[in-house]
């Protein structure tokens, strides 16, 4: 969808919601190098959210939406949980249907869009919590990867069921005492990033969202690789400050503490050979584009 498609008829302009007027005036749709730095200066693709104050998930949401390489042709798929409280306020088409079926929905959606728009880019991005991705939806998460479905799966890992009040999840750390784990969780945190690699994902990253520039990079890589090659998986630590007993301003520190070298969210990345090649090609093109822009700017200055 081009930006022209969302223009407002002059006669109706004043009765359109201000959100929508802003979207038309100053969205970064179509901007090639959009990224986290647009936050606060351009129309963001997420409005207010009803998450807890200081929730790292809300930061992650903003970084991701600012970093999608092609939001004007991206459809997102969510699932039940805290993320589903945010999606109604997101300015790209998004689907919530049931709990845990997000990768099945995305499989059908991506195929339908490929049938209907051959030769055009239509990215599909799944964004769901760890309960949806690893517990109730694990079957569909893995099967989509086995089938090499061409979309990105993002898991907001807060290591528990946050929306229902802090119950044990498969991605919870061993020994953590929570609802439904009254004597502490008895088994290890499920190693989904490794499983993702073995299941055929071409790009797997395990990290926190403490650094927006890093989130921007991995989102762009994941979406480009999924578009051209096959499934990609990002596991992002978005701690539930409420359920681990932190205050609103402590989310960022919690992420920083958890990404230290020996910690469970130390940056880990896997890139398949074809994906490496694609990233190199994209980097070369990007370099070329920047050099050309620089040259143009220099010429303009000389004139």
């Amino acid at each position, binding site marked *: *969808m081009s930006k022209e*498609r*969302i223009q407002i008829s002059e006669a109706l302009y004043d009765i359109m*919601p201000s*959100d*929508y007027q802003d*979207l038309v005036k100053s969205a970064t749709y179509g901007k090639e190098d959009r990224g986290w730095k647009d936050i606060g200066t351009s129309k963001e693709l997420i*409005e*207010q959210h*009803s998450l807890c104050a200081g929730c790292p998930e809300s930061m992650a949401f903003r970084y991701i939406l600012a970093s999608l390489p092609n939001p*004007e*042709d*991206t*459809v997102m*798929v969510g699932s039940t949980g805290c993320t*589903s*409280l945010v*999606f*109604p*306020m*997101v*300015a*790209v*088409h*998004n*689907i919530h*249907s*049931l709990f845990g*079926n997000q990768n*099945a*929905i*995305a*499989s*059908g*959606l*991506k*195929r*339908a*869009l*490929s*049938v*209907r*728009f051959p030769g055009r880019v*239509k990215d599909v991005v799944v964004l769901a919590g760890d309960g949806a991705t690893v517990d109730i939806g694990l*079957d*569909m998460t893995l*099967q989509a990867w086995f*089938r090499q479905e061409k979309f990105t799966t993002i898991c907001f890992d807060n290591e528990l069921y946050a929306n229902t009040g802090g119950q044990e999840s498969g991605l919870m750390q061993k020994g953590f005492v929570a609802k439904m784990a009254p004597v502490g969780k008895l088994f290890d945190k499920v190693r989904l990033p490794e499983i993702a690699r073995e299941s055929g994902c071409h790009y797997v990253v395990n990290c926190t969202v403490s650094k927006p520039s890093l989130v921007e990079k991995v989102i762009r890589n994941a979406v480009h690789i999924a578009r051209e090659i096959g499934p990609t998986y990002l596991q992002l630590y978005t701690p539930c400050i409420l359920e681990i007993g932190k205050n609103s301003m402590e989310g960022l520190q919690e992420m920083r503490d958890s990404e230290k070298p020996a910690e469970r969210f130390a940056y880990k990345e896997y890139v398949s050979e074809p994906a490496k090649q694609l990233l190199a090609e994209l980097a070369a093109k990007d370099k070329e584009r920047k050099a050309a822009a620089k040259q143009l700017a220099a010429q303009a200055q000389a004139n």
Partner: protein
Amino acid sequence: MAEIKSVIGTQNKKGQVYTDPWKMLHEAPRTPSFFTGSEVIKEAIRRASCDVMIAYPITPQSEAAALIGELFAEGYIGDYFRGESEFAVMSQCAGASFGGARVFTTTAGPGTMRAMENFPMWAGARLPIQMIVTCRGINSPLSIQPDTLEIAYLLNTGMLVWHAETAQDFFDWILKGYIVSEEPDVHLPLALCCDGFFVTHTKDVVNLTPTDMCLPPYDPYRSPVPCMDMECPPVRMMRDPFVMKSNYISYATHASWQQEIWAAVERSRKHTIHWLNGLVDTENTDADIVIVASGTAVSQGREAIRMLEDEGVRCGLVKVKALRPWPEEEIREATKNAKHIFVPEFNVTGWLAKEIRATVPNSQRVHAGPHVCGGMTMPPEIIVSEIKTTLGMKTFSLAGRGS
């Protein structure tokens, strides 16, 4: 305004001509063909301009689902794959439908039950997916035999539910189903049910429309809700998601949407009557005794009526074609003269008899039976026997323990 061009008369990539559906189904020449029900499903889908079909093996629909795969290999369908379970398949169908595709799938028995969470979601999201249900037992111990109990569970999902008697019904209704389902004032999924094996695995003469004619493609922009393809502006739909709110506005929103789904089922009535030539078919409803049935129980009822006629007992017949929308007025009218209403069924609970009891005045006239279940056949003799026993007539003794 851009000129709106009709696709009617143009060709698809297989050389089939997009044809006005009414002309294709009512005026085009028909060729009698001797096919199994599964093959008939394939032939209907060949002409249905489907974008996506998603398959999963479960008896007795596996053959039909695999035959659709052949259509994909031949280039008649945009995409096709085997999902990992019925729950996943129905979600994959939803994803494809959200993305604006015309979607087809098939399931049966335990598969229908496994997928059940999806069906109210399909209806609530206004996805006009067509699902063939080749009914089979859902009980434990495991059974693969014909049994229509699963239909009872579909009746309150908000889906349209039709019950085919024959392979010919199947052929016509698959095509007509898409027309009704995709009407902007309906836009709901359709469960097109049949009795597994009896219809899917038996051969019958079916009159087919020409292979070089097909339905016009689905137009997702006629949908009453936005298609999720980022081809129309992504409007922020609400300030706070209603799932979180315990207040009147939230309740009222959910309530009015549920009411709208059922209003859409109601609005499908006029289209269904138009395309199926009525929600019911009736014969001799001036008789004192009327058999009301759906699916292959209609065929058995028809045979029982012929046998009773030989003995001087006159019976009428009501074939219920659509279960949702429910033909309330039609059944009342067709049974108004009846002193006895018999409802033969292939399931243990008698869900059709319960629906009819709740519909007609003087419901003590409704005899819920005979019932067979677990895969047992329903010889017309047991219908005859049930009717004669009720009338106080002497009847032969059916197989029993002996005496």
